[in-house]
């Protein structure tokens, strides 16, 4: 390592720097590989229960007089019995409904949810026939969530995979710290959407608020309407045919295709200037004042 000097590194491009620092040839050291695992210790590393459910087995829960904990426990019990389609009636804005489901399931929520609706899930298909509060679909790994009405702020925060769809408008900070997956918004989105976005795609059919894509590392944002302002290090890019094809497919899939088609969408990507802030020219450092 000592062979690469700071001065040399500064002259290199991003790609060259990564290679020169040995990051492309990742390997474990010899000593580590000789460690033998204690067979009993494997118990600590058992992945959670994944029930085998039948989508045709359907049941309803009236959640009116139940607490969130009771509802979630009930969902787990029903999944254990093999129910693959569960309908929640009268959620009345309860928080944390259906969180932490790590298995396939059809979950239908007939009404509105509060904060953290169906967050931390991996696999289920969720339909919410109502509104959701803040941080819906937070940290989702895979699956789909479709919301028929509006959604609150920090929609799909730290999303890692799957499709998160809201037919109405969403609040501020949509897709903050997003790490993958797709967010589709039929209406408008508020300020700071795509803030520190890392990967994935976000589509907003309506307008976007100020500081769109602020400090985004990577990923793509498509906006159909007006953009109030772009954030630091977010830049407009050319909408390619591939983008249009993908947009058409995704928007058609969820019935969100605007009448005007997809040609008028604006594509926003990372300017990548902040990737290596330390190597910026003096004048460029004022970027994040």
């Amino acid at each position, binding site marked *: 390592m000592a062979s690469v000097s700071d001065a040399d590194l500064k002259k290199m491009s991003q790609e060259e720097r990564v290679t020169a620092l040995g990051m492309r040839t990742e390997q474990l050291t010899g000593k580590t590989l000789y460690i033998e695992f204690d067979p009993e210790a494997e118990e600590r590393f058992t992945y959670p229960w994944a029930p085998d459910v039948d989508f045709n087995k359907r049941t309803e829960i009236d959640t009116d007089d139940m607490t969130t904990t009771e509802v979630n426990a009930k969902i787990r019990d029903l999944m254990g019995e093999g129910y693959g389609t569960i309908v929640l009636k009268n959620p009345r804005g309860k928080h944390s409904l259906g969180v932490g489901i790590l298995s396939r399931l059809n979950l239908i929520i007939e009404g509105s949810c509060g904060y953290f609706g169906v967050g931390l899930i991996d696999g289920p298909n969720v339909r919410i026939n109502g*509104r959701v509060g803040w941080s819906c679909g937070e940290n989702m790994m895979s699956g789909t969530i479709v919301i028929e009405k509006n959604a609150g702020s920090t929609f799909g925060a730290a999303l890692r995979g799957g499709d998160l769809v809201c037919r109405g408008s969403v609040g*501020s900070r949509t897709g903050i710290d997003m790490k993958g997956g797709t967010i589709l918004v039929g209406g408008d989105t508020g300020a700071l959407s795509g803030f520190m976005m890392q990967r994935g795609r976000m589509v907003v059919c309506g307008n976007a608020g100020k500081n769109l894509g602020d400090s985004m590392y990577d990923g793509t944002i498509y906006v159909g309407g007006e953009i109030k302002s772009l954030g630091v290090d977010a830049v407009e890019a050319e909408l390619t045919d591939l983008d249009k094809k993908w947009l058409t497919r995704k928007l058609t899939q969820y019935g969100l295709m605007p009448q005007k088609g997809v040609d008028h969408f604006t594509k926003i990507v990372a300017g990548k200037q902040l990737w290596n802030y330390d190597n910026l020219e003096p004048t460029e450092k004022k970027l994040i004042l």
Partner: protein
Amino acid sequence: MCGIAGIIHRGKSSNVGGEMTAMLQALKHRGPDSTGYAVYGEGGDPKDYIMRIKVAEAEDRKTGHGVHKLIADRIARVDEILAEHGAKVKSKEAIREYALRYVLSHDGDTAAMATHIEEDKGTEILSMGNGLELIKDLGDASDVAGAYGLNDFTGTHGIGHTRMATESDVDIKSAHPYWAFPYNDISVVHNGQITNYWIMRREMERKGHRFQSNCDSELLAVYTAHNLKNGMSLEDSLKKSISEIDGVFTYLVATKDQLGMAKDTMAAKPLVLYESDDLIAMASEEVAIRAILPQEIDTYDPYDEEVRVWQA
């Protein structure tokens, strides 16, 4: 760090007391320390005022039996001052030993009278106005509403608050709503924190305004009162606050016939809005609106820097 809620009926009165209680009870988890209401009744003769005062604090009541005499002395002093200013006490009701509700008839400078009453350090006027009834105490919504007989209150609009203390104490003077002393019928509830509080507070103090607590939300009440007194409209005052006040906040202001909201530029504090022709309801969480409107409704989040004012 709190839960806030507001409701306004257009052109008719309703049981706002009961509605606010249901909404605030649903927001209990956002603020377990204290609960407060500012509800607005019809308002009768413009010379009739409802005044609510408290004459002891949570910490006073821990001091022992001497506090009962102290409370009695302070109440006697209030009565003396009212007489001095020519106010006629139509009714006087002690809801709790330390919390009283007066109905006064007064034809004169209410601001001077209010200032005089507050000269006694332990006495604080919680509210004064034609229609405004401001109630706040430690405990959750059902406790407070029960103790103060609020569940049957009829009026046009109201705002409410459940508080989780941040940097100030758990006591009544730091509970919301704040009345915009000494201007009739203006009250404020706030969720968030103000980070240029001391700069703004010293500025307001230099302009002659008084502060009763160290709670940053009180600044918004004083600030609004200052602007309205200088002829600004409620909407303009709300707009101006977004550029002048630093920090994150969502706050509601109620006047005799208006209800306004403002959200700061970071949009970090939640508010959910429901609007229909005859009813507007708003709260930190949907669960509060659902407590009074169980049927399927459409709600949405206001965006950053959004300011709205509704007429009763």
